[in-house]
Structure formats: structure tokens, C-alpha cells
């Protein structure tokens, strides 16, 4: 069975045109066929998924409604708690811990909507990376080109969706960890407003910036998942008390009435021309001609860097003191160095965040949506240390977040949309909205999808059957 989108699966399962059992069996078959080449999954929960699918089919047979995601297979970055499974967070250190006793809020909400969890997905250790070249569990390979990285830190999530193994996955984004892999793998990824979705039961990295969000191959699926995930949760102290603002019913409204502009300055230069060409194509399709400046965006990125390394290091301080050798060598020295950052630097960065937030708020008085590239390059080769940016050789991995970091720094909602480039590696464009206006970003993404400017077909894998 070919990869099908979540909305179609749920419709057909609820209409009894197919069964959750058939859908999940097919998904497990695709995972068995495709995952060995890609290494997206660190754990496949086959028996548990088939049992859950059976319960959904039984509920439908009794005349019940299992929910808007009935029978939809999904998988989660392995930093989400899943009852009965050890939460790895990409680490060897957490592998020694007992299994989680309950599901993360996001996992529980997807399951309550009828979705079926089929496994856990690879990531950069403790989410501190943009490439998912995990030394303990191996690199996740990009389904569009197996010699290249999937992006990170939610690389397994983006790759599992891009390869058609699941129509839906969850990831987390601190500085770009949903948007970067979505762009490199050519799928849709949503990083909602900071505080919109509960992070309870997800291993945090730098709490000031940690968000969770979905990946999908269509805007509709992204919105369906987002709607199910919304709602207050006392278990996450930053989760908003605002009521849910459903988006799936808004997608057909198009982008009419939205004021759309291109992000200038920091976001408009450097890296591969195709990443900036993609922004121009998207802007043309939306008839967006204005450019606006987010002032001091390069300093916003710098402040995000300082806060991230400081908060991440304090979270893992005990392990860094007692078992530093068990960290991924690609990550370890950054965490160690983070323990030594002067507190004055951290506090100044947090104050700068307030200043930048106020400037961004002013910009959004005149526009509703901003456009910017997601990454400076299409997917780099696995192991690629250096790349060219503005004529200079720069370290590839940290630079992948240059266009995403200033935005998560102030919690803006962003959809990374995959721009179609037949025969070439995918590139992503960030569709950025004001805080709490995910609807605007999703409406623009849906408009671009309807116009054929963005799309996320499942990758064809050479030699893969099923």
C-alpha cells in the first residue's frame, strides 16, 4: 500500500472503507522495507500498534467514533515519553533509565484522537544539533538522497514522514529543530507559538525556547494534528491557558486579506542561491512585494546561542560531572563549555530578548506574515564539516540554524513549507506569523500548496519495496 495522507486514512477508516488494522499493517510493512536504509526509527512498536488498531476497529464496529485521526499511524521523536518505553532523548545516558510510566501529553492527545503510535524516532543527542548524525544510534539518512543528512534535531521525524513510513510525526524545536529537518527532507513542519502546545512528558533542552510540533506531507494533516494537540495543560508551566484555536477549517480561506512581506537583512543573504530563490518564488505566488526588516536579527541569533548553551548545560550538569565520556562526542564539548558561560552574558541575552520581542511586535502591526528561507543550504552530505556562506568557509552544522534561531528566540509561529524543485534537493521557506496566529501561517501554506508551489510527495527509495 502506498503512503496515504492522514486525513484520507481517517476518513476511510471512519467510513469503514478500510480498517485501522490494514492501515497500520501497511505502515509497519513500509517501515520494515524502508527504515534499514534511512535509520529514522530507534524503536518500532509493532505489536502495540496492531493491538491499538484492533481496538479502534472494534470501537467503529460498535458504532463508536474513535476521533478525527482514526487509524492514522504516527511516530514521535524519542524525547517524548511513551508509557512502557525508555525515553532516550538521543542519548546513551538515558538508556539506563526505567521506561516511562505514562505518555507525554502530546502523545496522549494524538492517541485519544484515534491515531496509532508505531514507534520512536532518532534525533541529535538531547536535541543539541541540526543534522541527526547521532554517534550512538547512527545518522538518519535523508530519504531524498541517502548520502545526505536529514537535518535535526528532529531528523528521524522528518525522514519518517518524507519516506512515507508514517503520514504524521512529532518533533521539538528549540532553535530550528522542526523547521530545519522539514526543509532538508522536503516535508511540512509546524513550530507553533511558544507556549501553545504542552511539552509535558518531553525531555527539555533549553526551556526558554523549547517548543513541540508536528510534521506532515500536507498542510491539512499538519493542521489536523495541530488542532488535536492544542489546549491548556497544567503539567507544562509555560503552556497557555488560552482556549484552542482550530485551524483545519480555516485552510480554504486562502491568503486573501493577509499582508505578506519578505524578511530582509539578516534573512536575505548568504548560503546557496536556491534557498533565496525559493523565497522569491513563494513571494511571487503570493504577490508579496514588500520587504521588512527585523532589526538586529543577527544579535537575536547570538543571544539565542548564549541562552541555549547555558540552559542546556545546567540541565545536564550532573551527567557532565560524572560521565562526560558517555555523551555523543559531536555534542559533549558544547555542553561542557556551556557550564562555564558567565551568568552576566546569559542575563543580558534574556534582556535583549525582551527588546527584540518588542521590535518584532512593532513589525507585525503592519504585516501578518513574513517569508524567509529555512536553511542556508539544501541537505549537506553526512559528515560534511564546512560549507560556503557569503564567500567564507564556515562550520556546516551550527550554521544550519542561522535563519531559524532569531524567530524561535521570540516564540513566533512558523510553518516550514517544502518548495517543489523537480530533480533537485528540496529547500524550505519559513512562513512566519505573529504570536498566536498559526492560522495565518497555515492559510498561506495551504494557498501555496493549492497553487502547486509547495508539495511533499513521499520519496521514492531506490531498491525499497512496499
Amino acid at each position, binding site marked *: 500500500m502506498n503512503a496515504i495522507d492522514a486525513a484520507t486514512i481517517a476518513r476511510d477508516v471512519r467510513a469503514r472503507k478500510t480498517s485501522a488494522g490494514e492501515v497500520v499493517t501497511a505502515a509497519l510493512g513500509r517501515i520494515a522495507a524502508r527504515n534499514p536504509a534511512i535509520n529514522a526509527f530507534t524503536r518500532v512498536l509493532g505489536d502495540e500498534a496492531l493491538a491499538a488498531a484492533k481496538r479502534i476497529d472494534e470501537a467503529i464496529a460498535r458504532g463508536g467514533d474513535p476521533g478525527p485521526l482514526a487509524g492514522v499511524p504516527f511516530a514521535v521523536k524519542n524525547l517524548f515519553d511513551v508509557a512502557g518505553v525508555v525515553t532516550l532523548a538521543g542519548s546513551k545516558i538515558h538508556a539506563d533509565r526505567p521506561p516511562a510510566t505514562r505518555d507525554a501529553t502530546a502523545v496522549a492527545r494524538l492517541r485519544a484522537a484515534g491515531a496509532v503510535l508505531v514507534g520512536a524516532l532518532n534525533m541529535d543527542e538531547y536535541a543539541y544539533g541540526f543534522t541527526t548524525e547521532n554517534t550512538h544510534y547512527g545518522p538518519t539518512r535523508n530519504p531524498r538522497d541517502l548520502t545526505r543528512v536529514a537535518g535535526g534535531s528532529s531528523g528521524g521525524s522528518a525522514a519518517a514522514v518524507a519516506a512515507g513510513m508514517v503520514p504524521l510525526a512529532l518533533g521539538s524545536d528549540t532553535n530550528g529543530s522542526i523547521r530545519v529537518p522539514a526543509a532538508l527532507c522536503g516535508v511540512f513542519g509546524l513550530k507553533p507559538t511558544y507556549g501553545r502546545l504542552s511539552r509535558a512528558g518531553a525531555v527539555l533542552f533549553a526551556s526558554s525556547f523549547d517548543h513541540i510540533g508536528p510534521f506532515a506531507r500536507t498542510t491539512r494533516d499538519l493542521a489536523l494534528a495541530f488542532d488535536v494537540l492544542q489546549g491548556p495543560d497544567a503539567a507544562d508551566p509555560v503552556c497557555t491557558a488560552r482556549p484552542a484555536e482550530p485551524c483545519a477549517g480555516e485552510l480554504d480561506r486562502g491568503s486573501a486579506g493577509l499582508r505578506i512581506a519578505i524578511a530582509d537583512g539578516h534573512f536575505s543573504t548568504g548560503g546557496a542561491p536556491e534557498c533565496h530563490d525559493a523565497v522569491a518564488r513563494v513571494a511571487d505566488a503570493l504577490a508579496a512585494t514588500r520587504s521588512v526588516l527585523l532589526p*538586529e536579527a*543577527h*544579535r537575536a541569533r*547570538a*543571544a539565542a*546561542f*548564549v541562552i541555549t*548553551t547555558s540552559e542546556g548545560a545546567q540541565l545536564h*550538569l550532573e551527567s*557532565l*560531572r560524572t560521565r*562526560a*565520556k558517555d555523551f555523543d562526542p559531536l555534542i*559533549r*564539548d*558544547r555542553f*561542557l*563549555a*556551556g*557550564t*562555564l*558561560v558567565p551568568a552576566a*552574558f546569559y*542575563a*543580558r*541575552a*534574556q*534582556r*535583549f*530578548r*525582551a*527588546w527584540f520581542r518588542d521590535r518584532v511586535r512593532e513589525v507585525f502591526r503592519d504585516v501578518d506574515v513574513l517569508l524567509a528561507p529555512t536553511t542556508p543550504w539544501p541537505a549537506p552530505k553526512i559528515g560534511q564539516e564546512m560549507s560556503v556562506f557569503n564567500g567564507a568557509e564556515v562550520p556546516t552544522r551550527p550554521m544550519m540554524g542561522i535563519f531559524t534561531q532569531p524567530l524561535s528566540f521570540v516564540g513566533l509561529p512558523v510553518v516550514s513549507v517544502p518548495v517543489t524543485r523537480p530533480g533537485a534537493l528540496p529547500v524550505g521557506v519559513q512562513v512566519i506569523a505573529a504570536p498566536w496566529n498559526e492560522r495565518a501561517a497555515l492559510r498561506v501554506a495551504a494557498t501555496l500548496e493549492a497553487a502547486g508551489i509547495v508539495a511533499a510527495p513521499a520519496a521514492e527509495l531506490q531498491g525499497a519495496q512496499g
Partner: protein
Amino acid sequence: MTDLAAIEAYVDHAASLVGLTLTPEQRDGVVRNLATTFAVAQLVLDFPLPDDVDAAPVFEA
């Protein structure tokens, strides 16, 4: 740009104070990464931020 030797001296003293025991390889990596962090942080420190800009944690009943 902070002098690399100064970063090395800082790491050698501060690491033990926060309870880290660094191998020579880790020490080199920490120096390299901390030098980057100091350079990056300078972009933030150089910005003339008004004193009344407050990170402002807000607590509501």
C-alpha cells in the same frame, strides 16, 4: 575577540570549580567552543541595551 590563552586559563580554573574533570581532548574542545561563545556573546554585549529593558517574568494568580 578574547585572547585564546585567556580562555584556556579560564577553562583550566573554572572547570574544576564547577566540578568538571576534563580529559585533554575534552579540554581542547571546551576551549574551542567557549571561545566561540565569548565571540558570539560579544554581539549581544556590544548592543546598547537601555537599563530599563527587563526580561520581566510575570506571575499571575
